[in-house]
């Protein structure tokens, strides 16, 4: 039978009082564990960290060629080419500034602005995501090739007009005609 008890005692049980040797064990153990976790997180960060940049930022620095990065851009719908037999997708993204107050508007402006920087994206092995449409926000991980094409390994998409409230068109037209 064990000596431990279930009731809460207000006086410490003699067998459970810590001596300085055991306390040292605890401290050393704690420090070692902290160090182990810190090492785990830091090494994970070093190997997994990628810069997250806009297309302008990507193209501005020639050192970015060959570097594993994450970029965001606005999808130009008419540029999407999909080889469904081999699961190869090619499309163009236009630059979206990093800080925007109205994301949907910024995406729209990026795609319609002839002066906005653009790059081609090439990704293989992925089924074409349903959200890959005109003016969608694409977040891609990958590498910029020497040929100026961005070879993506990961593609995430956000719906452009999700949760944005836009005015009902017919109501606006009706108002304009004075109905």
């Amino acid at each position, binding site marked *: 039978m064990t000596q431990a008890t279930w009731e809460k005692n207000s006086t410490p049980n003699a067998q*459970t009082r810590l001596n300085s040797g055991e306390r040292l064990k605890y401290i050393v*153990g704690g420090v070692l564990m902290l160090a182990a976790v810190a090492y785990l997180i830091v090494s994970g960060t070093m190997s997994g*960290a990628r810069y*997250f*940049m806009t297309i302008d930022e990507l193209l501005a620095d020639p050192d970015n060629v060959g570097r594993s990065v994450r970029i965001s851009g606005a999808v130009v719908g008419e540029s999407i080419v999909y080889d469904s037999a081999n699961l190869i997708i090619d499309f163009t993204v236009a630059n979206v500034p990093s800080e925007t107050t109205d994301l949907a508007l910024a995406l729209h402006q990026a795609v319609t602005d002839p002066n906005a920087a653009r790059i081609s994206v090439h990704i293989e092995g992925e*089924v074409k995501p349903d959200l890959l449409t005109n003016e969608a926000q694409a977040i891609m991980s990958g590498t910029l090739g020497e040929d100026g094409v961005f070879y993506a390994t990961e593609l995430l998409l956000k719906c452009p007009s999700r949760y944005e409230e836009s005015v009902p068109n017919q109501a606006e037209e009706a108002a304009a005609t004075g109905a």
Partner: protein
Amino acid sequence: MYAEIGFAATLFAFVTAIYAIVVSVYGERFVRRESLVISGRNAVYTTFVFMTVSILALQTALMTEDYTLTYVWSVSSPDMPTFFRATALWGSQAGSLLFWAFLMSMFAAGATFFNWKSQRRLMPYAIAYMMASTAFFVGLSLFIENPFERWWILPNGSVAQATFAPVGASLPALRDLWESARGLNPLLRHFGMAIHPPMLYLGFVGFLIPFAFAMSALASGDLSTNWIKVSRRWTLVAWMFLSLGLILGGRWAYDVLGWGGYWGWDPVENAAFLPWLIGTAYLHSVMIQEKRGMLKTWNMFLVIGTFSAVVFATFATRSGLVDSVHSFARSGIGFPMFLFWFVLTFISVWLILWRRSRGELKDDHPFGSIFSRESLFVLNNFVFVALFVAVFWGSFGAPIISEIFMNTEITLGADYFLQVTPPLFILLYILMGVAPVSAWGVGSLVRMGTAMLIPLALTVLSLGVFVLQGMTNIGALFGYGIVLLAGWVAIFETYRGMRARMRSHHESPLAALVNLTTRNPRRYGGYFIHVGITIIGIGVIGSTLFQMETQRTLAVGDSLQIGGYEMRYDNLLEGQISEDGRVMDIAEVTVLRNGEEIAHLRPRRDFFPQAEGMQQMTIAGSYSTLENDFYVLLVNWEAINANAATFKVYINPLINLIWWGSIILIVGTMIAGMPRESLPAHVREKLQVVHQGA
């Protein structure tokens, strides 16, 4: 009509919530007048009543298709099925925030009703904290994200959005609203998505109650285990809903997003995972305070950390803090939510430190040996907190800090999480296996080792089964072994308890099990939950390490081979129109194994002609068994030559164990929450001693 009723009700709820805070604190702390405190309590009930009216107004507006309300217009449309019309209540920001506030007022009313008499000292402060949080969320709905705003046409012809009519404005023509109504986002038109948000909200909101009682304990000075006892069942319920919400989210992603996976380590997923990590640590850690009066400060930090993480999660998700496929559009609620999170975290931490400095959070016992149960629980806390830090760092810490201090944003993707979290999860499973055989106060490796012999043997036998099936991957076997050991320990400890009862009470096995569980529901419910977690773990290892995939273009009648299966393309049904207006192209395929037809699947592509932004959806067809999922996506077909279609096929081994394991988890939580059979105290003690010695 619904807009006016709803808005008025929300406004009254806000007022009564503020009243409850003021009157409870003033009546309890400053003038010690019972009538004021009672009035504060009644205000809690009144707030709940008003919020019920408010949410019913919005729900009725949705069901009766009142498109003059901007919210109804933006999340529903005439051709939507009734089920989704109802669930559109949380289809977008404003509605889901109001739903949050409603749930919060409901939980606050419930906690007050059930505990008023037994916890008179804690209640007034608990009410103050619960209503402070409720008032904040009601306030968000009132002042920033108002679901009761309507469309108006101004005299100058432009369109405006407001609750009450601007001067000279008129309502738009109903026909225009009807035709232009946006409808629920197609991605949300899935059964799983319809219950995943409410489950998640119930989980999040549920953690307000233990938080409020903990804060009340700190504020009132009643630092006994009262606050833990009174909030225990709420914590279990909240934890269950949060677990369910996370698993349902994964299931939805698996069914509808078409990448063959269920967890992407996306910032919003991780934001919801963080409170779960701290909440699970808290669930375990409070046992120590109840049994041995230890870890008082830890538990305060854990319970407050859980709710703080909840508020942070909803802030991060709704404010556009980090980029995620889930995020809502940036809105005006970002800064107020950040402020709320900061204030509540600051006040709670300050209160803990204040009480600690007065010596009121001292442990009753110092620590026992390093292998005692309480030490293992501390290690458990540590691992959960380490996981929390690792996940927080990956999704939020690194991007935010790098943006502030380095002027460029560093992001960490799935590869970071898959490198950093597995060792910690393994450690958790090891603890799950070892802790149940440990004892309070003393640690004896020999004793623990002997108690684990049979579970170890059973684990080796189970691994033998895997090896016989052809598994040779040492890493996977190691992972399976650790996970299985935790499960076998839980089962074996239950069996030992049953055997002791059968001997001493001469009961049948079933009676012994039932009596064992009802005498100590938390322990045996907990073991049941551990079995569920074990099963989920096996499913995760199998589906992550051994997933197979292939893609082929097939002509009608052709087959592809994968993993011992054959899949034959039979037919394409084009242009099928469903009742909610979507147009479906359905491929019919047959799955064969060893020449025998085992399944007919219908992977398809849906088109939504009316929806904005996203117009198509890929719905997989899958054949699910315990062994694996045979999961097929219709990638595309040649429109001109409809004889050929491209398919992507995944085989996900053991993935259904995840869903089944979660059902066991739910049942276990319900067992754990059962009221203990009431026995006289001295009899109960004898039984506990018998259990321990057996």
